[in-house]
């Protein structure tokens, strides 16, 4: 994980690092999107389109507990969705979590 300090916390750089890690460590992930709008300054929100998960579970974001209790503490939330759930989100037929928005969305990688 790239180092950061209070003065140099770079959320975008960390987001790119996590995205690369997730593409390396989870072969089910097809696309990773970073959703920065409305997120607190030290919160990274990912939407990950995954072909290997079940659609039977409604999507809920999960806090990965990545860096707690240090000066560089930050939060990574990952919302896993199937490809068809992603289509439904884009058509606004499936809501995002409260205060999450696709506005300003950045795609950080895919297969």
């Amino acid at each position, binding site marked *: *994980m790239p180092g950061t300090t209070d003065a140099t916390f770079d959320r975008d750089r960390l987001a790119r690092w996590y995205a690369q890690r997730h593409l390396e460590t989870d072969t089910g992930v097809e696309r990773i999107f970073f959703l920065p709008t409305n997120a607190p300054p030290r919160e990274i929100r990912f939407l990950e389109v995954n072909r290997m998960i*079940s659609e039977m*579970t409604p999507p809920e974001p*999960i806090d990965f507990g990545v860096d707690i209790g240090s000066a560089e503490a930050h939060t990574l939330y990952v919302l896993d969705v199937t490809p068809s759930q992603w289509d439904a989100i884009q058509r606004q037929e499936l809501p995002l979590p409260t205060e999450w928005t696709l506005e300003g969305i950045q795609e950080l990688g895919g297969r």
Partner: protein
Amino acid sequence: MNDAQKLWWRQAQSDLALYIQLRRAGAHECHVLHYLQMATEKISKAYLWRSGHAPPKSHTGFIRFLKALLDRRAGELEWIAKTLGFGRREDLDKWVSSVQILAYSLQNIAPAEARNGPNPEYPWPHEAPVHCPSDHKFALWSQLLNTGQGRKMMEFIQRAISCFDAYA
């Protein structure tokens, strides 16, 4: 480790203990697999409680645990890898990448994830069942028992649960 993690860890240990007992007793594959899958679900939830708040009540899954663990800082991953039986963090990385299909198979065998197919708990398909878990030979169990990757996976799960307090 916070209090919620301790509770989920205790339950993971209990599920794992029963998995070992059932395996020694020669129980039907479905029950052995079921307790192995449940143990991984409990340790996944125990780990994700690291954040200080509850992970979703729904199925969390073994893969999410592995991903979250590998998102730790490089310095931490060096000793976490050794704790889990790997020489270096790169070895842990490579191993996780190599067992994706097996890990997803274990995660997706839970009834909530099995999409009306083979699962260790309920006859299937639900609307017109023709299969019973206790009669079924699970390809996943054969892979876990009879391949190097499978045996390493079972060893990893046992270590991840027994050593949880070291990296929680």
